[in-house]
């Protein structure tokens, strides 16, 4: 129990530090939007996943109010997506985009699998580590698609007009 609590606290700490460290000042808006979009999708997808027993979270923050994990869903993975989204290179070869994407997804799935195996924070039901990879990949793709739509038309987005991006 203590270890799980420490890990959750570490996620909050590293999440905040990571956001301010890896999301450049001029991209804060972009980062925040990516964070919120991902957060919204992961809630929507995790509701049925938890309901139908794909996975569960035995140790969690609000055991009475919800069976879902708050820190992971609400904060940590959205932060990771936000860093992923802001740091990705747009004008680059397709294979390098794919490696970047696959690297992030594999890293997060690996982290998830380790959490599942060595702690009580997550417990897979009918989900496998391989399934988690696909699950996170879909979440990333959909969120990225929505964020791209949001920032598509630069004239509509005033912050972009003032500070053009170089990526």
């Amino acid at each position, binding site marked *: 129990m203590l270890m799980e609590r420490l890990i959750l606290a570490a996620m909050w700490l590293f999440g905040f530090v990571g956001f301010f460290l890896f999301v450049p*000042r*001029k991209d*804060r*808006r972009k980062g*925040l*939007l990516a964070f*919120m*979009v991902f*957060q*919204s999708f992961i*809630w*929507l997808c995790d*509701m*049925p996943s*938890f*309901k139908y027993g794909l996975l569960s979270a035995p140790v969690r923050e*609000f055991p*009475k*109010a*919800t*069976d*879902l994990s*708050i820190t992971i869903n*609400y904060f940590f993975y959205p932060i990771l997506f936000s860093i992923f989204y802001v740091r990705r290179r747009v004008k680059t070869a397709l294979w390098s985009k794919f490696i970047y994407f696959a690297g992030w997804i594999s890293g997060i799935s690996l982290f998830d699998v380790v959490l599942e195996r060595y702690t009580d924070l997550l417990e897979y039901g009918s989900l496998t580590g391989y399934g988690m990879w696909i699950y996170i990949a879909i979440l990333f793709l959909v969120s990225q698609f929505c964020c791209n739509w*949001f920032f598509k038309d630069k004239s*509509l*987005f*005033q*912050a972009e*007009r*003032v*500070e053009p991006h170089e990526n």
Partner: protein
Amino acid sequence: MRIEYWLLLSAYPIGMAILFFIPKNKIRLAVVAFLFTQLITFLLGLVVVELGLLQYPVRFFASINRASFTYEYFFLPVICALFNARYPSNRSTLIQCGYYIGYTSILTISEILFEKYTDLIKYINWEWYITWVTVCLTFYLTRILSLWFFSKGKVL
């Protein structure tokens, strides 16, 4: 099916219909307001249930989530999106205050009615004016964030 489920289900088409009242050039503003409201209400909604202040006897995803998914994830964010997209920023302070009071009061009154006549929500250690204040504050916070998000000024 109980009347409560029909009410919950009807929140979705009504919410969708409300989205059509958002002007086309304000869609991005509405998206930011919608997402930011979710960020606030989802967490606070869980906190108040965890602390035992409120109960939602009839709800979706009942086995895993004791807060109201429909209201916190969808309906209130939609209302907040409309609130921000149609905000009368060029009008007098009086009208702006009235705008806040109007939205907040309509939501609060409907919540009181739901509390009284249905099983959708039950107050335990809660009063209607707490709803009023928290909803008003949510509107205010989303408005502040949206203003910052679309401002030309310095970032953070």
